[in-house]
């Protein structure tokens, strides 16, 4: 085991290999508040990459309903349970948040790599704590879809009392869209006995070398997000490839500019934003104040990693849903949840403008600029003053090409009276 620095945990941790960081890191943000669970992303991925024989049960992108749903069933509960068994009562956070090296404080518990030392399989200690899901657990990706937690017993002819009040519904659920997190410390890579999994030095995308894979399924066992899948017809494991030809700028539709993945581009709810992040030598993010991902994760701090306590340093971030029970969200996204929801619920001028970049263009935005516009109105949101300005945000590709220009207020077109009912 080596000692590596995990900024999401605010500390060093054990990992089977020495730290090695790419020039740029593939990363993305999903705004859960806007996801309607339409599965357009799921089908965009399915029809692009996993439509062939042997991939029938394979969903690189899936959208599951929380708290009950999951693909495979109960993937997160099972891993959290294993961690709790390995470190009873010790999986908690402490310390104060600091800059980019410890934005959520310090995690005092055990990661899946640290807990694995005491988790013995038939061949001795594993490299990462995990389990292999059964076929049944993979069989129904939409199980429990649209189910709220229902902690209040229903009464016939009567609505739930207080269920409409924010921030905590008595009954709630939300959609969690998931792809491979292309982690900085991938558990799949750590566990592979064939060294068939690698992280690309140019963009940090994690791939499985199909020539080397021999179908041990150790990656499936180790990945805490359960995002590697076995294909019976080739007897190899497969996973999300982050649509790397698009990220490389090889999709003709992008005119040689790097493009976001298919699932990001297809999202009709504009909940997704994907980009590339430059890293320091210790794996922390290089300051890029006007990169939208850097701004949302390190400046506004509204986007948080999914289960950072697993210790893989996932590069998928989520703007947490406002209406969900806070203890549940703290377990899922770490201690930054309260500040993130506070900020997102009454966004400041810059945040509101940056949120307009989601889903506006398929090409990857590296930098944004804001042109100030007039004040539209002001009001009070949950006791805080809120003013809406119709600012214009302009997004640029890495080479400086202008790719997006949009305003905070959606443009209003008044149709001529003679065409009132025609398109």
């Amino acid at each position, binding site marked *: 085991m080596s000692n590596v620095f995990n900024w999401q945990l605010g500390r060093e941790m054990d990992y089977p290999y020495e730290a090695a960081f790419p020039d740029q890191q593939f990363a993305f943000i999903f705004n859960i508040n806007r996801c309607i669970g339409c599965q357009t992303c799921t089908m965009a991925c399915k029809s692009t990459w996993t439509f062939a024989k042997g991939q029938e049960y394979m969903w690189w992108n899936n959208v599951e309903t929380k708290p009950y749903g999951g693909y495979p069933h109960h993937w997160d509960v099972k891993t959290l349970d294993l961690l709790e068994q390995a470190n009873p009562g010790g999986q908690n956070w402490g310390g104060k948040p600091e800059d980019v090296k410890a934005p959520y404080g310090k995690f005092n518990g055990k990661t899946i790599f640290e807990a694995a030392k005491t988790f013995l399989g*038939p061949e001795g200690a594993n490299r990462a704590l995990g389990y292999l899901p059964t076929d049944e657990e993979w069989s129904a990706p939409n199980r429990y879809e649209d189910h709220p937690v229902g902690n209040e017993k229903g009464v016939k002819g009567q609505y739930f009392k207080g269920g409409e009040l924010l921030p905590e519904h008595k009954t709630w659920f939300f959609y969690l869209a998931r792809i491979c997190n292309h982690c900085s410390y991938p558990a799949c890579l750590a566990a592979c006995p064939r060294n068939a999994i690698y992280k690309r030095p140019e963009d940090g995308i994690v791939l499985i070398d199909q020539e080397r894979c021999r179908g041990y399924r150790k990656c499936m066992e180790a990945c805490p997000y359960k995002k590697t899948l076995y294909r019976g017809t080739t007897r190899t494991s497969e996973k999300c490839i982050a649509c790397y030809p698009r990220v490389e700028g090889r999709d003709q539709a992008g005119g040689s500019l790097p493009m976001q993945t298919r699932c990001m581009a297809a999202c009709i709810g504009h909940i997704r934003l994907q980009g590339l992040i430059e890293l320091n030598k210790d794996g922390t993010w290089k300051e890029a104040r006007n990169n939208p991902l850097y701004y949302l994760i390190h400046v506004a701090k509204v986007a948080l990693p999914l289960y950072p306590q697993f210790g893989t340093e996932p590069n998928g971030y989520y703007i947490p849903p406002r209406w969900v029970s806070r203890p549940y969200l703290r377990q899922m996204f770490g201690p930054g949840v309260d500040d993130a929801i506070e900020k997102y619920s009454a966004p400041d001028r810059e945040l509101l403008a940056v949120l307009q970049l989601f889903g506006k263009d398929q090409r990857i935005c590296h930098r944004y600029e804001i042109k100030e516009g007039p004040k539209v109105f002001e009001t009070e949101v949950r006791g805080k003053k809120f003013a809406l300005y119709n600012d214009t945000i302009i997004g640029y590709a890495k080479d400086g090409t202008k790719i997006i220009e949009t305003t905070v207020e959606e443009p209003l077109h008044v149709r001529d009276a003679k065409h009132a009912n025609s398109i």
Partner: protein
Amino acid sequence: MQLRYDDDFLEAAVFLCASGRRSGVPPLQITRFHRKREQLYSILDPDERNAAFFKLHLDWFREWGLEQPLTDVLNEFPLVRERLAVLAVRKSTGKNDEGAELYVNEAGQRTGLLALKTERLTNHATLRDFLRHEFMHLHDMLDPVFGYSPALDLPGLNAAQIRLARERYRLLWDITIDGRLAAAGHVPLQPREQHAAAFARGYSFWPEARQAATFASLWQNPTPRQTDILALIADPRGLRDAHRPAPGAPCPLCDFPTFHWADTRTLALEIRQRIAAEFPAWLPDQGLCNRCLETYQAASPSEPAPAVAGG
């Protein structure tokens, strides 16, 4: 009889052992298994490669004693061995998909197909209980004394009633199977009490004494017949010849069983005429369900909104 396995089933089964989900497998054997498996990836021809994987997985399936419970339990059913040409085992992806089926081709050759969740192989005791139950199903299907026919002879029942009858058939057949297994000293798939409770739910319209007597006769019957089961499922309420509104009888208009009959004495003339136009043979004494009444009231402009009680 030939015992055949599906590729996916074999592979999933041996991986139970190789991934440590079935205890007692020596680590050295796991290493040897993976080493031999790795070598097969170098075979370029896909058919040859699949055949080689199949053989390897079958060898380890036997080496790790996974075939033993299957053949042991199968030997307890000589009729199945004798009458089946092939018994094929395939992987089931869930509990609802599990079970045994019989297929007969045009030449009269019989094939049994057993769908099995591979996780069952982790516990040989419960696996044997499950296999006995399923092989008993096959045994009945092949036994002339049972007189099995895949098409249930249930004349005069509509689609909804046939579906209900099939549910009852499944319930009663399972009771007779587990009753026989218990009598032979085996552990039934479900205990007697659980079956008795399910039977009481399915036949709640009978008096308790009749329920108990019928259940006992099913549980203790050493040689059940399909005709006996059919007699109990087709019309247990005795409604077939009712020709009058009785609780649970089918509505003469929509054919759905109902417990909520409309009062036809106060039926408006306009509605009677509408019904008669579509069902000329219908008489008010035969009744109609509240749902049908609602439909005809909704279609009659002069009739006020229906005041229907429940249902």
